């Protein structure tokens, strides 16, 4: 078969791969800091819609996208600052509400957002190679934020806050950085989406996307950035792997994967890879030494631990 033909036949999956990698990392970056938030999906929608709206108003789409992403960063920062006292499930629920409220807004803002039909005919402003470049840059940034002293500080912030404080780490600032980054990455993913598919509907930045993102992160292995990337790629290609009659049930399949991973391979594909690696070396994977890879704790336990945190930070028992 001709390469060009293969490329065109899989174009949607190729574009999805880049979008999902960025989306997956936007989930990873907050969860890794011990922040249970889905606000990134809200920013995905905000950035997608505002780019589409500005483009309709004859703002050059690339400029529109840039403005949207910068705005996501600013709003994300303020948002993060105002919810910094909320913890665990409470923050999770609050950010889900944020996502759902935005969806209602998109549906009911008349011609501005195109109602339930959404907005169509956005010009494509990011060619496939640009998507790739963006995904790589985002990957490198996250990699840099996962190694050495910064990586260690995020691990400590997530896994034991009082320990982190006892060695002088500014945990609240770490969380705020993570929240802001996640907002920006969510925005970038939304912009990539609206350029690739040239449209956006109120349904896309919703609960399904939250499930999808969580599946990516859990599938790949929640505690490492490599895992998040692998998860994003796998989920992007899943529809191609699913044979004919299964295809309409993709959401169901995602759910089953999520459940199966949590039960059978709680540390995801990255966890399996690390186990194999460790068996060969009898040493921890090098990433564990610099602050990334998971070990004893399962991501399921991590998520559960996040969810069980008290609603508001309080003096804790030592």
């Amino acid at each position, binding site marked *: 078969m001709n390469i060009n033909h293969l490329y065109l036949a899989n174009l949607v999956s190729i574009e999805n791969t880049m979008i999902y990698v960025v989306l997956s990392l936007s989930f990873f970056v907050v969860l890794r800091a011990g922040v249970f938030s889905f606000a990134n999906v809200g920013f995905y929608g905000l950035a997608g819609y505002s780019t589409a709206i500005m483009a309709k108003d004859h703002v050059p789409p690339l400029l529109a996208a840039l403005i949207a992403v910068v705005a996501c960063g600013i709003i994300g920062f303020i948002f993060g600052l105002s919810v910094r006292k909320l913890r665990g499930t409470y923050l999770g629920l609050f950010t889900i509400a944020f996502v759902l409220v935005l969806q209602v807004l998109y549906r009911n803002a008349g011609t501005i957002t195109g109602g339930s039909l959404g907005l169509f005919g956005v010009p494509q402003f990011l060619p496939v190679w640009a998507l790739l470049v963006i995904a790589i840059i985002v990957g490198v940034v996250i990699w840099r934020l996962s190694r050495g*002293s910064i990586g260690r500080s995020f691990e400590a912030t997530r896994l034991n806050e009082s320990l982190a404080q*006892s060695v*002088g*780490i500014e945990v609240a600032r770490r969380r705020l950085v993570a929240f802001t980054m996640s907002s920006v990455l969510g925005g970038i993913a939304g912009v990539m989406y609206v350029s690739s598919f040239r449209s956006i509907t109120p349904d896309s930045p919703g609960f399904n996307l939250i499930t999808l993102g969580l599946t990516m992160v859990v599938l790949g292995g929640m505690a490492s950035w490599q895992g998040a990337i692998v998860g994003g790629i796998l989920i992007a290609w899943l529809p191609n792997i699913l044979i004919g009659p299964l295809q309409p049930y993709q959401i169901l399949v995602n759910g089953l994967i999520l459940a199966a991973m949590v039960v059978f391979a709680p540390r995801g594909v990255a966890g399996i890879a690390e186990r194999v690696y460790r068996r060969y070396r009898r040493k921890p994977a090098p990433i564990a030494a610099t602050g990334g890879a998971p070990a004893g704790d399962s991501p399921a336990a991590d998520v559960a631990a996040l969810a069980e945190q008290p609603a508001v930070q309080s*003096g804790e028992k*030592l």
Partner: protein
Amino acid sequence: MSALLSIKDVAVHYGGVKAVDGVTITVEQGIVYGLVGPNGSGKSTLLGAISRLTRITSGELSFDGHDYTHWTPQRIARQGLGRTFQTVRLVPTLTVEANIRLGADTRVFGTGIFKPWLRPLWYRPRDKEVTDIAREAIARLELESFRDRLPDELSYGTQRRVEIARALATNPSLLLLDEPTAGMTDEERDSISEVIRRLRREGLTQILVDHDVDMITGLADTMGVMDQGHLIIEGLPRDVVRDQAVQSAYLGRRQRADS
């Protein structure tokens, strides 16, 4: 001698429970202050209050000339107050060495997130410094053979040693040790005592909480006894252990538990 730490009328109340109830302590520079007391007498809560991890109901805290009553725990930690915890707290996903590096990180790199990106110029030399600090702490607690292991693979006693090494890597001028020898073998216990003794000779001020009264009397310059949130007596260890109130605080508990 001058006071390194002085706390005044510190109270920590949880609803009706007065975990710590009006404790005043002054810790002189360079001494080991031993703190004992029955279970639930408020020793750990007091260490929590001193390290600012536990919110205090009332009182004043001062360290090295700073009134830090309203500081965050991370700020007072960077000012030179290091600690370990009664229940070992290590990052399970990091190796022993990385856990210990954590102690040196903020002191060497600061708290920012952007400067470490300047890899060759800014990060590398500092990273080497962190390596040296970590290696020194590792050597001091004889953890060389565990460097690349994960905490879950270690015995409880070894985990405790890792925690002490991490606290030392913060280069504290005051070190709080909450039952550092709990769950250790006699041999490990002796080696920790030796570490504490050596640190004292090097001039490190320490507050040592333990149930092992013999160990405390052997190590501490000053000894305090807590009971039901109060500091009931303070003085030279050999005087304190002979005190009537101390005897009854311990014996009283035991009799109550027996009946």
